[in-house]
Structure formats: C-alpha cells, structure tokens
C-alpha cells in the first residue's frame, strides 16, 4: 500500500530542469528518505508535493486521490500532509506553545466574533487544543521546559524539535521532514532519530524525509530514493542503495581517483 504515489513528475524553471520524469512510491507506515547531492531536486520535489510549485508534467497521488494543482497548500495541509523546512520556518515572534498550537489551526473552527469575545466556543476550543498539545506532543517531544519561551531564543536543535512538534499538531498522515538533523550534534541527532522512529511506530504516521546524514539515513530508513540531476537513480532498501555503483559515483564522483587526477592535471603535480 502506498500513501503517496509520484509518477512522471517534471518541473523546470526557465530552462533549468529541476525534476525530470520522477516516479516513486512512499509505502504507508514507512520512513522513506530521499537522498542525493546538493541541487539534485529534493527540495523542489517537496515543494511540488506541498503545492508550492506546479509541476509541468506528471501527477502526485495521495491516498489514491490525484492532487491537482488547483489544490492549494492549505488544503493539502488539511488533508494530512504536514511538513518541516530545511531552513527552520518557525514564527519567530511567537512562543513555542503558540507555534505548536498553530499546527492545530486546520482542525479548529472558531470564528472572528467568538475570538473577539473569547468567552464561549473560542475558549473551549482553545482549551481542548491546549490540552491535546500538552499531553500528546509537548510531553512526547520533551519540550515542556521551553513552552513559554519565544522560539528565537532557542538553540538550533530545539528549534528543529519545535518545528516537528508543530507538524505533529497538524495530525498528519504523512510527515515530510526536510533535513531534520542538518547542523545538529550527535546527541541532538540521536534524539531526533528516536522521535522519528517513535512517530512511525507509535503514531503510525508515514515519514518522508530529505536528509544528508548518511549514518542516520541508513539506520532509520525503511526505503530510500536517490535523486541526482532531477532524476531518480535508484530506490530500494538502505543496504542495496549503499552498494549501488551509480550512487557511489553520485556521491564520491569517479572512484578511480588516480585516472581522474591525471585527467584534471595533465601537466604534473600541484605545487
């Protein structure tokens, strides 16, 4: 069973082909990771899925339904596609708690009038969300000690965790994480890995991520898709992908360095 089905996706910006004929599936209940060198088109792919970019060709199906380009990002969020960003996209003017509560926005209903008065439906709904956020998410991600702090004052690792919390508050079916551990130290990475695995196992949420840290990727992914120059090179289990010569070449370049050295430096050694 696949929850996301990408087929023949192509995207280009004024002649530059960001994605070419990309097809793959995200099996339900897995951690699926997209890897590839810088500029391979990973983030563009995410942006197509969340509805910011309109691919020129191809389709994205979510739970069997084709997401046409008329379905705008907010609607996709409501359908259960949550996402974090490569460069943290928290709201710097708000506290951690408010950031997380924003995640629940799509599931709330109170209108402007009751918000102005605050008594009645708006307050009841706020309390329900607050309780849910506290008990389900803040506890789980161990961020109760910072809930009142403005996010701008937090460390990078904690900011990433708050972003994850916010995505979880959206009650997603698919959680898209763009480089969740980039820039973290080992300990922070370990925490994040643990959360990702728990999210999959305990909450049953499918995780689709883009990540560069190969150690972590290989350890926690169930399925890996490799992109280079906007194309899928290969996909499969971590152990298979690691051995694929195409992948090795994409990452290390031509592994025969001696011949490469001669080619690049025909007139002798570097000074």
């Amino acid at each position, binding site marked *: 069973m696949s929850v996301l089905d990408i087929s023949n996706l192509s995207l280009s910006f004024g002649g530059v082909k960001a994605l070419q004929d990309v097809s793959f599936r995200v099996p339900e209940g897995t951690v699926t990771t997209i890897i590839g060198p810088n500029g391979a088109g990973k983030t563009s792919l995410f942006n197509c899925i969340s509805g910011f970019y309109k691919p020129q060709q191809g389709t994205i199906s979510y739970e069997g339904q084709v997401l046409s380009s008329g379905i*705008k990002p*907010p609607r996709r969020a409501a359908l259960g596609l949550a996402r974090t960003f490569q460069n943290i996209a928290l709201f710097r003017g708000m506290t951690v708690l408010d950031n997380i509560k924003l995640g629940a926005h799509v599931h709330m209903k109170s209108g402007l009038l009751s918000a102005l008065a605050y008594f009645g439906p708006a307050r009841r709904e*706020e309390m329900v969300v607050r309780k849910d956020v506290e008990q389900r998410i803040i506890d789980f991600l161990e961020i109760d000690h910072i809930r009142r702090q403005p996010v701008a004052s937090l460390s990078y690792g904690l900011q990433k965790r708050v972003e994850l919390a916010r995505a979880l508050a959206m009650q997603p079916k698919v959680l898209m994480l763009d480089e969740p551990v980039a820039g973290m130290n080992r300990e922070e990475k370990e925490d994040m890995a643990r959360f990702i695995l728990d999210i999959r196992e305990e909450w049953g949420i499918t995780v689709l991520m883009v990540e560069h840290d190969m150690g972590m990727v290989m350890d926690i992914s169930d399925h890996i898709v490799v992109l280079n120059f906007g194309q899928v090179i290969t996909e499969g289990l971590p152990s298979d992908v690691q051995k694929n010569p195409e992948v090795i070449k994409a990452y290390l370049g031509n592994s025969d360095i001696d011949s490469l050295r001669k080619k690049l430096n025909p007139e002798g050694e570097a000074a």
Partner: protein
Amino acid sequence: MRIGDAKQSYEADEAIWTTPTQKMWFGLFLLILLVFPFMADSYLLYLGCLVGIAVISTTGLNILTGFTGLISLGQAGFMGVGAYTVAWLSVNTGLPFPITLVLAGLMAAAVGILVGLPSLRVKGLYLAIATLAASVFLHFIFAEWESVTGGMGGLSLEPAHLFGWSFQSDFMMYFIIVPLAVLMVLAAANVFRTRIGRAFIAIRDRDISAEILGIDLLRYKLMSFALSSFYAGVAGGLFAYFYRVVTPESFPLSMSIFYLAAVIVGGMGNILGGILGAAFMTLVPEALKLLTAALTPFYPNAPVFMSPMLEIIFGALIVGFLIFEPHGLAEIWHRIRRFFRLWPFQN
C-alpha cells in the same frame, strides 16, 4: 523553572492577567479611568477623549501592520469612511450612537476588505502604496460626492444620543470613548489568544510556512484588513461625534502617518505598545506646547520659532526611536518592569 508552569489549569495559564498583582493593577487602572473625568478640567478631558480615539485606531492599525505585517498608509481613509458613515446616518436617520458606530465600523471594514484584495499579490511597501492609493480615492470621493458627503464643506452633525441623552460635552463623550477603547483593546488582546490571532502573526513572520500549516492567506489577510478597518471606522465615528463636523480635510495623509508612527513608536505587534504609542504621539506635541508656553514670558515670539521646532522634534523623535529603540515603548516598559521585578528582595 518559571512560576507560570505551576498553574492549576490550562485555563488559568491562558488568561491575560496571570497573577493577582496584575489583576490588581488592571483594576486600579480602570478605577483611575473612571475617576479621571470627575477630576479633570475641560482640556484634560479633551485630551483623554483624544487619546481614547487614538488608542482605538492605533490598536486597529497594529492588528494589520504590527501583527499581520501588512503596512497600511490608508488608516486615515478608513477613519474617514467611519466618520462619514456616522455623519450621514446622524443627519439622515437620527439613529442612536451604538448603531451608527457599529455601522461605521462595518462600512469601514467593507472598504478595508476591498482595499485588502491586492494584498495577496502585492507585498510590503508596494502594498503600503496601494493603501495610499486607496486613501487618495477615498479623499476624492469625500470631496466630490456632494450629495452624500457635502463636498468640501463636509457634514455637520448633532451630538451622539441614546435614550434621550445627548452626549454633547467632552465629559459625556468621555463615557462613550474610553469604555469603548478599553473594550476594543481587550477584544484585540483576545483575538491573539486564539487561532485567528496566531494565524495573523504566522502570516507576518513567514507567510509561506503559514500556508503549509493550512492557513488560507487571502482569507486571513482580508480578515485582518476588515478587523483593522473596523477599528478605524469606529474611531472615525467617534471622531465625528467628538468634533461634530466632518470634512475631507479632516483625514489627511499625515494622519495615516501619525498612526503608523504611533504603532512603531509604541512597539509593533504589541497590544500594550499600541496604547502607549497612541498616548505618546498624542501627548508629546502637547508637552512641547507646554514648553512653548513656559518660554513665552521670556520670548513672546517663542510660539513663532517653536512651531518649526515642533516639526523638527517630531521627526527627530521618530528617527531616534527607530535607531535607538526599534522595539518601541513597549520594550522600554517591559525593561522597567523587569528591573523592578529583579529588585533585591525578589529572586
């Protein structure tokens, strides 16, 4: 760990006033507002009313510019819509003031939505110019649609009335303006305890990730415009009842700039900042006039050379604030409070 975490319930934690001390101060503040008109002379009363109107309008603009990040140079225009609505209704229907004020707010909100429509495509300063264009059109309509607005001569209206009371004096107007200002500020504070307020701030901080979280940008931007212009409309309506004459020249561009300056000087995206900014911007020129008055016995010509000084000081204040305290009066206020909270006896 903070004391705030020891709350008995989430509800208590989400309250605007979280400690008994805060509640006490707020109560005291309300009491002062209540007693003030009985102690003040007509000039202070006048200033009180003026500050009240400015607080409402500044809070409205703060919602739009400070919290939602949409810069508007059209605030005076929206106030004008409210003022003309009240004036027209008062001249042609004689409705009591609560109804006319609500209608003024709604009319301004409707205009606000119309003006806000480009906000989905146009951002930042381009949007500011779009709102400026709107205020130029509004001024044109005020001046030229004579059958409704009375043209350049404007409209004169009767005092606000309700149940046979006529609110003619400033003393009476105070009891309309100030309670309304308190209510509207509280309502604005409430909005920012709910999902709607959070959506506004999200749009300001990063509209793209707001969209990812399922926030419909156009809907909420328009809502912010509507809410903000509603406040402006009510403020304009009060302006009309207060001066009892409304002309196209009552709402110049400089007034929009005044409110924008109030928001910035007070502290953008801060409810308290809106109040402080409005009070500051209204009272500083008055304080400078006191200075002029103090100089006049020595230099009878002081009024003549002090008036350009006022403009210089006004400009220098804005520039100085932005350079040295970009977060405005609210930040200064918080710093003072922190200072006292950390006094030797407390830890």
